[in-house]
C-alpha cells in the first residue's frame, strides 16, 4: 500500500503489474491489509444490505402496496438483517481491531498472522455462501432462493416441513462458516493484546480501544459458540432426522429461542463495544482532554461483558415464560443499562471543560452520544417485561435496535473511518463532503427512526410485507421511507468521498489530529513493520508525554 515512489532521473522504473498487487493482497498476512480487506468487504455489504432496506421501505410506503411479493419481502428482511449483523457489522469491527490493535499496543503484527488471514477468508466465504443462495438454493418445488426465515430463524419454521429446499441451509452454513472465522479472530485479538504489548504498556496503560476489543473478543468466544452449536443442531434436525427442535417429537421451539438469544444478545454488545472504543479514542482528542475516568470505563465495560450474558430472554418476553423468569430478565436488562449509562456520562465528562473541535469524526461522535442515550432509554422500556408485552415484536423494537445499530454502530464506524482514514491511506477525507454526509445522514436517520417508534405504539407488528390502512400507520410509513432515501444519498456522498480523497485528498502526515496514541507516531500509512523500533511507554498517552515533556501523564497515573 505504501506508494513511496522514488524518481531517479534517467532510470525507467516499471510499475508493478496489477496482478502482482492483487496477488499480494490475496495472500497477505499483514494485519493492516487484512484490516482494510475486512473494512472494504463490510462496506460492500453495507451498500447491498442498504439497497435491500430501501426495497423494503418502498414496499411499505403505502398500505397494500405491490412493489414486491410477500415471498420476496420475507427474503429481503431476512437477508437485510443477516447481512448487516454478520457481514457488515462484525467484519468492519474486526477490520478496525485488526488494523489498530497492534499499532496501538506497539506490536508489529497480530499474534497469529496466518490465522488472521484464514479467519478473514472464512468470513468472506460465509458472505459469499449467503448470497449464493440466490442462485443455488433451488430445492424441491423450486422452493429455494434466498433464506426467508428471518435472521433469527425460529423453529419450527426452519424445519424441513415448513422450509423445504435449501434456502435455510445456506443461512445456516454461511453463519456457521463465518462463525468459525469470528472465533479465530477473537482468539487472535486476545493473544495479541495479552502477549504482544510493547515494553512499559501494562494492562492499565493500554488504550481503551485495546481494552474494549479484549472484552469484545472474550464475548465472541462465549457468545458465538452457542449459535454454532444451535446451527449444528438445526442441520442435524434437517438432514439426519434429529428432533432437537421438532415439536412433533416432543422437541422444543423455545429451546432454539434460548440458544439463539444466548448468542444474540451478547452479539449486539459485541457490535457496540468496539464503537464505544472509537468514542473513547476520538472524543478525548477532539475535546483536547484525556478520557474522563479511564479505570471506571474499563470496569464498566467488563461489567457490561458479564451482565450482558444474563439478559438474553428479554427477547422472549412474549413467549410465555413464568412471571419469575420475566422478572429476572427485567432486572438484569435494566442493570446492564447502568454501566452503559456510566460510559455516556464519562464521555460527557471528557467533553466538559474541554476545547471541542467540530471536525467530522467528532460530529459523528456527538450524534452517537445523543442517539445512544435515546436508544438506551427505549431499551429500558423494552426491558420492562410488562411494557414489553406490548412493545415487543412491533415496530417499536425495530426502531430501538436500528437506533442502536445505525445511530450507534454505523455512526461510530463513520467516526472511525473519518478519523483513521488518514492513517490508513495517508490522505485526509474531504471535510466539506464529510459535513454533507453527516448532516444528510442525521436528518434521514432521525426522520426514519424517530418516527418509526410510533407505528409500534399504534400496534404495527414487524416482518409484515403490507399493512391495513386506517390504523394511523400510513403517513408515518411514508415519511419513514423518505428518510431512508435521504440516508441513501448521504451514503453515496460518503462513498464518493472515500474514492475521491484516496486520489486527491490532502496529504495527512503522521499525526493530522494532534493525537496521543502510538499509531500516530508512525508514518501514514505505516510501513509493513509498523515501527522502526519497538516503542517503550510510560503512560496511557505516550505522545502527550512526548509533546508535553513538562507535564507528562506519567506523573499523574
Amino acid at each position, binding site marked *: 500500500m505504501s506508494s513511496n515512489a522514488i524518481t531517479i532521473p534517467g532510470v525507467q522504473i516499471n510499475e508493478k503489474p496489477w496482478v502482482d498487487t492483487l496477488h499480494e493482497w490475496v495472500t497477505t498476512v499483514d494485519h493492516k491489509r487484512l484490516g482494510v480487506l475486512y473494512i472494504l468487504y463490510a462496506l460492500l455489504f453495507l451498500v447491498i444490505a442498504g439497497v435491500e432496506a430501501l426495497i423494503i421501505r418502498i414496499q411499505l410506503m403505502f398500505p397494500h402496496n405491490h412493489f414486491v411479493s*410477500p*415471498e420476496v419481502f420475507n427474503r429481503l428482511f431476512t437477508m437485510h438483517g443477516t447481512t448487516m449483523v454478520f457481514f457488515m457489522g462484525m467484519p468492519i469491527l474486526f477490520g478496525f481491531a485488526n488494523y489498530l490493535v497492534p499499532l496501538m499496543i506497539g506490536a508489529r503484527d497480530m499474534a497469529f498472522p496466518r490465522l488472521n488471514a484464514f479467519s478473514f477468508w472464512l468470513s468472506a466465504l460465509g458472505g459469499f455462501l449467503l448470497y449464493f443462495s440466490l442462485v443455488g438454493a433451488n430445492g424441491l418445488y423450486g422452493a429455494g432462493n434466498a433464506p*426467508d426465515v428471518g435472521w433469527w430463524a425460529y423453529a*419450527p*419454521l426452519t424445519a424441513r416441513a*415448513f422450509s423445504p429446499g435449501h434456502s435455510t441451509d445456506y443461512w445456516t452454513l454461511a453463519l456457521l462458516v463465518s462463525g468459525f472465522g469470528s472465533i479465530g479472530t477473537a482468539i487472535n485479538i486476545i493473544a495479541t493484546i495479552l502477549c504482544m504489548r510493547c515494553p512499559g504498556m501494562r494492562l492499565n496503560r493500554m488504550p481503551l480501544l485495546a481494552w474494549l476489543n479484549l472484552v469484545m473478543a472474550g464475548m465472541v468466544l462465549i457468545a458465538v459458540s452457542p449459535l454454532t452449536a444451535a446451527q449444528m443442531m438445526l442441520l442435524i434436525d434437517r438432514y439426519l432426522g434429529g428432533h432437537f427442535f421438532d*415439536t412433533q417429537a*416432543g422437541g*422444543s*421451539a423455545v429451546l432454539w429461542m434460548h440458544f439463539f438469544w444466548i448468542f444474540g444478545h451478547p452479539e449486539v454488545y459485541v457490535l457496540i463495544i468496539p464503537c464505544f472504543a472509537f468514542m473513547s479514542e476520538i472524543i478525548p482528542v477532539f475535546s483536547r*482532554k*484525556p478520557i*474522563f*475516568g479511564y479505570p*471506571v470505563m474499563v470496569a464498566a465495560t467488563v461489567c457490561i461483558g458479564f451482565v450482558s450474558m444474563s439478559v438474553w430472554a428479554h427477547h422472549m418476553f*412474549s*413467549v*410465555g415464560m*413464568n*412471571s419469575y423468569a*420475566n*422478572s429476572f430478565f*427485567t*432486572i438484569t436488562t*435494566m442493570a446492564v*443499562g*447502568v454501566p452503559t*449509562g*456510566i460510559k*455516556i*456520562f464519562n464521555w*460527557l465528562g471528557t*467533553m466538559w471543560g474541554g*476545547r*471541542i473541535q467540530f471536525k467530522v469524526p467528532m460530529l459523528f461522535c*456527538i450524534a452517537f452520544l445523543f442517539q445512544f*442515550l435515546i436508544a438506551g*432509554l*427505549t431499551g*429500558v*422500556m423494552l426491558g*420492562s417485561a*410488562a*411494557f414489553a*408485552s*406490548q412493545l*415487543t*415484536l412491533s415496530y417499536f423494537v425495530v426502531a430501538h435496535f436500528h437506533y442502536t445499530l445505525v445511530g450507534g454502530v454505523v455512526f461510530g464506524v463513520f467516526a472511525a473511518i473519518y478519523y483513521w482514514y488518514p492513517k490508513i491511506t495517508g490522505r485526509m477525507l474531504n471535510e466539506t463532503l464529510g459535513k454533507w454526509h453527516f448532516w444528510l445522514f442525521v436528518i434521514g436517520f432521525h426522520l426514519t427512526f424517530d418516527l418509526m417508534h410510533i407505528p409500534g*405504539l*399504534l*400496534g404495527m*407488528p414487524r*416482518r*409484515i*410485507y*403490507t399493512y*391495513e390502512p386506517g*390504523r394511523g400507520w400510513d403517513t408515518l410509513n411514508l415519511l419513514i421511507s423518505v428518510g431512508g432515501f435521504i440516508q441513501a444519498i448521504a451514503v453515496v456522498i460518503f462513498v464518493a468521498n472515500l474514492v475521491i480523497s484516496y486520489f486527491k485528498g490532502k496529504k495527512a502526515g503522521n499525526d493530522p489530529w494532534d493525537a496521543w496514541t502510538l499509531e500516530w507516531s508512525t508514518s501514514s500509512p505505516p510501513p509493513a513493520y509498523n515501527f522502526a523500533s519497538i516503542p517503550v511507554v510510560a503512560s496511557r498517552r505516550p505522545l502527550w508525554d512526548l509533546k508535553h515533556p513538562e*507535564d507528562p501523564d506519567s506523573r*499523574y497515573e
Partner: protein
Amino acid sequence: MWQIVIVAFLSTAAFAAASEPTNGTNIFAPASTPAKLVAHLSGFVLAITGIIFVVVFTLLVYSVIKFRGRAGDAGREPPQVYGSTQIELAWTIIPILIVVVLFLATARVIHAVQDAPQPPGALEVTAIGHQYWWEFRYPKLGVVTANELHIPVSDPANPTPTFLTLLSADTDHSFWVPELAGKTDLIPNHPNRMWMDPQRTGIFLGQCAQYCGVQHAKMLLRVSVDSPEDFAAWVRGQQQPAVQDASAAAGRRVFESNACMNCHAVGATPANGRFGPDLTHLMSRVTIASGAAKNTPENLRLWIQNPNAIKPGSLMPAMQLDDGDLDAVVSYMETLR
C-alpha cells in the same frame, strides 16, 4: 356505470353503519385490565426515562455549546482532568436506584397480569394458531369458529373475563390485540395462557405478531366484544347444526365430492376436515381469509377460484372448479349462517 358506484358506496356505508364501532390498535387506548395495567406502567416508565433524557440531553447540549473550541485556542490545551471518584459514585448510585424503582413497578404488573387467578365466571377459549388463520374453540360451549373472536364485555363490579389457552398447529404465532392485552405467543408443544376483560363493547382489531411464514402479514384478528345478550345470542347461533338449505343441495354436492372436505368441517355433515377453518357458520363472519377480504359472495368466489389473488402463499389450493360448480358451491356457502 354510475349506478353501480352509488350502490357500492351505499352498501359499504350501510355495512359500516350496521357494524359495531371499530377501535384502533393503540396501546395507550386500553379497554381491558391487562392492557390498562401495562399502559399505566408505561406512563410511569416514560415519565422517568423522559426526565433522564431531558437532564442528560441538556447537559450534552450545554457542553457542546459552552466548551466549543474557539479560534484563539490553537496550541493551548485545557486543564487535563483525569476523573473524579465522587462524580463516578454519584452517577453510578443514582441509576442503580432508578433501576430498582423501575424493576419493582414492573414486577408488580408482571405478577398482576400473569398470575391472575381465573374466576369461576370466566369464559374459556382455546386459540389454535395455523398458517395463516386462527381457530377458536369454546370447549365448554361446544363452539368451533375461526378468525373472528366473540367475547362478552366484563363489568368491573362483576367480572366475566375471557381466559385463552394458546396452542399452535404448525409454526410460532402471536396473539396481539393491543387495546385488550399485551401479546402472547402461540408455540407448538408449549401451551400458553392469557386473559382479557374488555370493559366496553365494540370491535377490537389486531394481528399475528410472530413471523410465521409467507402470509404472516394477513393473519388478522377481529375481536367482537358483545353485551351479555348479544354474546348469548351469538353462542346460540354457533351451537346450531349447519343450516340444511335444500336450494343449495347442488353446491353441497360439489363441496362434498371435491377435496373441500379434506380441510374444512361443516357441522352435522360428512365434512370434518380440521386443516382449514370450520365453515359451519361462515356467514356469521364479517371477513374471510383471516381478515384479508370482506365476506361477500364475489370475494368468496374469488377465494375459492384463486386464493393467491387475495392472499398469495396461503395454504388453500385453487380448487380448479368450473364456473357452474363454483357458483353452486358459493351459493351453498352463502347458506351457512
